[in-house]
């Protein structure tokens, strides 16, 4: 096996993140945990974008993951973080397996808007259901991880460490997937899907599979986010949340599986600073940054990393 810089960098980065787990201050831990959770969602978006699809509705799966995990603890009485993570992911993947049958037929704007419509349907349901706390959502209290009881104050660090480990394995897996037969097919679909069909491959199947993978990653991200924040609300499924994921994906670019996490970390750090000093111009700064990236760095920030490496 040849030396792979991406995997090596991923391993080093996750190693550093793990080392930080017991010693980092709470605020940094919170920021990183959110960045990792959102990075996972954007990792799925990266896969979709490699296939030529931009989803303005990943908030659907982000929210589903968060709610499924939170409900398991809140209603099911199974307040075990490991179970919640699995439940969030599985729930998102299951819903995607149904909706994907339909959505895999759509491209471009129609794909974007239909996925947005589905996320807004969930939003509409959550906002109106008083049993689930309506617009306020509800709190999630978790004290166990895989059957082990956690001391107060330690649980956030454990969840964060778990997400760092998940990021390593999933980043690795997606990196491998992108270089596999189906990964290559995905990019071919983005370039010209009719030719792919003429070559004998099933575009529908690849798009469907990628859609489910992206949804599962978003669900996992949602579950981790719910654990990190300790609260879920319908805002997670609102279209502006999905827009945020698209923004992070554009910011980082689709060049590498590391890009989403890098860009999510930058995004979260900037947001923390902005909410402190300039809460009223935060969105404006985002908009300007987005325009600048579209105009001058169409490949996202990852182009800069690649340029330095080359």
């Amino acid at each position, binding site marked *: 096996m040849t030396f792979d810089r991406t995997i090596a960098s991923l391993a080093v980065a996750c190693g550093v993140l793990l080392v930080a787990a017991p010693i980092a201050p709470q605020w940094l831990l919170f920021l990183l945990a959110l960045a990792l959770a959102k990075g996972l969602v954007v990792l799925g978006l990266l896969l979709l974008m490699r296939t030529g699809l*931009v989803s303005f509705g990943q908030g659907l799966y982000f929210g589903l993951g968060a709610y499924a995990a939170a409900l398991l603890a809140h209603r099911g009485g199974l307040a075990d973080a490991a179970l919640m993570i699995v439940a969030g992911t599985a729930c998102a993947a299951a819903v995607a397996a149904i909706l994907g049958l*339909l959505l895999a*037929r*759509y491209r*471009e*704007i*129609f794909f*974007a*808007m*239909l996925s*947005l*419509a*589905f996320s*807004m*349907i969930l*939003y*509409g*349901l959550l*906002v*109106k*259901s008083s049993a689930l706390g309506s617009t306020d959502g509800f709190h999630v209290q978790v004290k166990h991880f895989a059957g082990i009881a956690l001391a107060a104050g330690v649980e956030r660090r454990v969840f964060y460490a778990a997400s760092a480990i998940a990021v390593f394995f999933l980043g690795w897996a997606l990196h491998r997937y992108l270089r596999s037969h189906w990964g290559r097919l995905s990019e071919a679909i983005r370039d*010209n899907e*009719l*030719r792919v069909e003429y070559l004998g491959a099933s575009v529908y199947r690849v798009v469907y599979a990628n859609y489910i993978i992206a949804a599962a990653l978003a669900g996992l991200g949602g579950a981790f986010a719910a654990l990190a924040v300790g609260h879920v609300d319908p805002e997670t499924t609102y*279209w*502006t949340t999905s*827009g945020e994921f*698209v*923004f992070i994906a*554009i910011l980082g670019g689709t060049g590498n599986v590391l890009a989403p996490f890098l860009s999510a970390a930058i995004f979260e750090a900037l947001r923390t600073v902005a909410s402190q000093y300039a809460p*009223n*111009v*935060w*969105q*404006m700064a*985002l*908009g*300007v940054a*987005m*325009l600048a990236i*579209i*105009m001058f760095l169409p490949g996202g920030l990852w182009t800069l990393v690649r340029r330095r490496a080359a």
Partner: protein
Amino acid sequence: MSNFAAVVFDGVVYSSWLFLMAAGLTLIYGVMRILNIAHGSLYALGAYTAASLGGAWIAAGYAPAGSFAMLALAVLLVGAVMGPLIERGLLKWMYGKDEIVLLLVTYAVFLILEDAIKLVWGVESKLFSEPYALPGNFAIGALVYPVYNLVLIAVAVVTGLALSWALYYTRQGKLLLAVIHDREMSAAMGINVDRVYLATFTLGAMLAGLGGALTAPMIAVSPGIGVEVIVLSFAVVVVGGLGSLGGAALGALMVGLARSVAVRYWPEGELFIIYFVMALVLIARPKGLFSAPEARKI
């Protein structure tokens, strides 16, 4: 029976409002192939401008009837300033990129305008209800409605008719149709496509402003009102078929009526039903109700 009439009337009022938003959106998409997310911000700008101008008018002690003129002025201002500003200043440099990239560009414009509005008008909500109260009330059965609702319906109908007349019976409109049909060929035949784009975007911005200005008297104008409008008008436009004016009208009616039925009989489903209608239509007709088949490019 009067219950049913009330539901239909509510639906038609809501549809009129939706149509005004959707008409501008579908027009811009039809001509420029840009799905304009900033449309919601233009709507908000229209509402804020109307509230400010109208508020100033009332505060100055002029006749309240004149506040309607202020609504019109707000519409013209938003169109004439924001349209050329966004089209000439930004979109012009982006033509030729993917539709989805253009979508992201207008998303960026939306983010910028959202904060710009907060900076200019502050985060306090603005009230400007004179035009709403002024024309008085009328009754359907036992239910009393403000006449302003009829104004809204009338404006929507007139706008729709005027737009289709302009599009199909005037020279400029036919030039526009030519550009929609084939941009490059029209340019080759000597149509100034740049100007058509500018005019279209300005008109679209004006329609968004119109929707906002007419809404301003009915609500408390506050930050974030544009956010929901965008997805709603997207839903309408997508139901009708992107780029089709008749489609926007039909889509607005379907969504508007579905919503008012839901509000009456199943209030929890208000938001749900709108997007559910959209999803259903798209499942049956993947490109909306009024959409021409397209050849696939190899």
